[in-house]
């Protein structure tokens, strides 16, 4: 696999280079928009109230928020040719803590939320340290830490429940300027990516994912960058957990597990390369929306909800196969 300077748009170790023209290899990144348009179009024809009914927008986007957050982080890990399965553990543990020890009312909640975010960063840093400075693959490191933090979560909160701070529940519901807060969060995430994608940080991650030894020769501090990427993934997973816990108003010691498949699926549907070095968190957010439209489509088709579990897996398999074939061709 060769790294050509044209492969990079943003500031890279090679210096600033013009954004490349759209090629076949970029097709997967555009597919997410197609998936969203097709599925949303189908739902709109079948049962328009599911999308434009009163409160439907806020309710739908409130499911998008946590997945978009986790998928954003998963994109960073995948850009470096890695993967983070421990997001499940981070979400479960944060949720268990938010429903037991960290549920103060009023302004006292703020330092507790900061503690949750710090915990996410810390867990991410531990993953990053092991991935950057030991020869163990990201997949094994995070598989192990997923099990460890899930175990700790079960220790903190053995069964679903607990009490969540009413302040938190209130803060995450309703709207701002007559637009649901969930929509604002997604817009903010898209803006964050718009800014981030042109930074040296993302350029370095892309360089690492494209060709790690080449990136090292170019002076990219690989260990530090990987550490930062996984710390960011942990942080975003902790934020996702805060949102989910506020919405469900209960802690769940294994509620994070579903986010592993879902975030990987969102990123893959979004077209970020599973071979590293090419990707976009904005596409992953579109991938999240496409993924979460599946159960809505199943509902609109009047099928049993079990169909969505099947279709979610099927869509992941089809999308990943499509992307793999295109990306393997493009790498030749």
């Amino acid at each position, binding site marked *: 696999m060769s790294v050509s300077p044209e492969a990079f748009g943003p500031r890279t170790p090679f210096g600033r280079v013009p954004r490349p023209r759209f090629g076949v290899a970029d097709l997967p990144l555009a597919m997410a928009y197609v998936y969203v348009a097709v599925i949303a179009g189908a739902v709109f024809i079948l049962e328009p109230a599911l999308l434009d009914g009163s409160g439907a927008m806020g309710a739908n986007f409130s499911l998008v928020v946590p997945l978009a957050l986790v998928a954003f982080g998963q994109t960073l890990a995948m850009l470096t040719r890695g*993967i983070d399965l421990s997001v499940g553990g981070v979400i479960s543990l944060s949720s268990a803590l938010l429903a037991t020890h960290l549920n103060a009312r009023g302004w006292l909640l703020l330092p507790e939320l900061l503690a949750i975010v710090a915990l996410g960063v810390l867990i991410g840093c531990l993953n990053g340290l*092991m991935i950057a400075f*030991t*020869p*163990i*693959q990201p*997949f*094994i*490191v995070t*598989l*192990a*830490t*997923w*099990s*460890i933090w*899930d*175990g*700790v979560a*079960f*220790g903190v909160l*053995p069964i679903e429940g607990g009490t969540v701070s009413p302040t938190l529940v209130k803060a995450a519901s309703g709207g701002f300027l007559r637009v649901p807060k969930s929509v604002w969060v997604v817009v903010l995430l898209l803006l964050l990516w718009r800014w981030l994608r042109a930074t040296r940080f993302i350029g370095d991650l892309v360089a690492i994912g494209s060709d790690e030894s080449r990136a090292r020769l170019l002076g990219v501090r690989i260990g530090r960058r990987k550490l930062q990427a996984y710390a960011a993934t942990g942080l975003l997973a902790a934020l996702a957990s805060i949102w989910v816990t506020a919405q469900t108003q209960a802690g769940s010691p294994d509620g994070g597990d579903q986010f*592993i*498949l879902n975030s*990987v*699926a969102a990123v*893959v549907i979004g077209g970020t390369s*599973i071979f590293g070095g090419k990707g976009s968190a904005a596409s992953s957010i579109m991938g999240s929306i496409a993924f979460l439209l599946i159960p809505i489509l199943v509902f609109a088709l009047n099928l*049993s909800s*079990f*169909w*969505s*579990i*099947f*279709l*979610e*897996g*099927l869509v*992941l*398999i089809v999308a*990943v*196969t499509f992307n*793999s*074939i295109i990306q*393997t061709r493009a790498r030749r």
Partner: protein
Amino acid sequence: MIEAGADTLRRNSSIVLAFVLAGVLFVAGTIQTTGFASYEHTRTVLITASFVGLVGFGQTLCMLTGGIDLSIPSNLAGAAVLTAFLANGSSAGLIWIVPMVIGLGMVVGLINGLGVAYAGVPPIIMTLGMNSAIQGLLLIYTNGGLASAAPPALVNFVDGNTLGLSTMLLIWIGVALVATVLLSLSAFGRKLYAVGTNIRAALLAGVRVKRVLVVPYVVSGASAALTGVLLLGFLGQAFVNMGDEYLFSSAVAVAVGGASILGGKGHYIGTVAGAIILTLIAANLNLLSLGESAIDISYGVILLATVYLATIRLGRR
């Protein structure tokens, strides 16, 4: 043949180490309580380990090629639920039901294998998606996965003894023999190690790499389905989540057994030791009245430690 065996042992000193660790854990349990080493308890430990060991057969082959099978949980649960569902409490149909569900498991594995080998999909993502798809299909077919109890003949078969030994253990020994012949004595075994060690070199040496890459997933589908059927007999009932714990334990058993996650190194005999180690750890933690939480944590730590030790040892050579 004997030299080949001795050579395998020498190359896999980590397997010997794994058996030593299993022995240490057994002694630790015996020190804690007197009943630990009794015939009955030892038999229970080994039978519990045999389920991890059986799913571990397919997982070992997958990991030898540098892959992994994460579709084991729903494949296992699917076979169990389907068997209970189709048999509907009677033992008469088992003759055709059991081969059929194992065949279905192989079909699932074949799809995994084709995706990995021919489309170049990373095994983690392929099998993760498959796990969800199969679970969905299972729920649709059974309308929620509530199945009737296990057929009595299956329960008797799994709980019973053959020639004075537990039938489960005999099946496990049989699988271990088949695995040893396959890995150490057959041409296919050599190809599998060749592909796992260096796929390019294997290709240049004339190995049909893609075909070899498909087989482990088919075997894993079959071994997961077989384990599902036997676990149905052991537990007396089937439920949709019954396979979940085997996702992690099968992978950890293979890693603890000294196989390299990168592929090309390891043996099923190591997985046997790994399965026994995991079961003994759970039994020891139960003695200390530490539950699921402690087991999850310790499995994670063990996975990290063994893979770390294996990779640094690989690096030194």
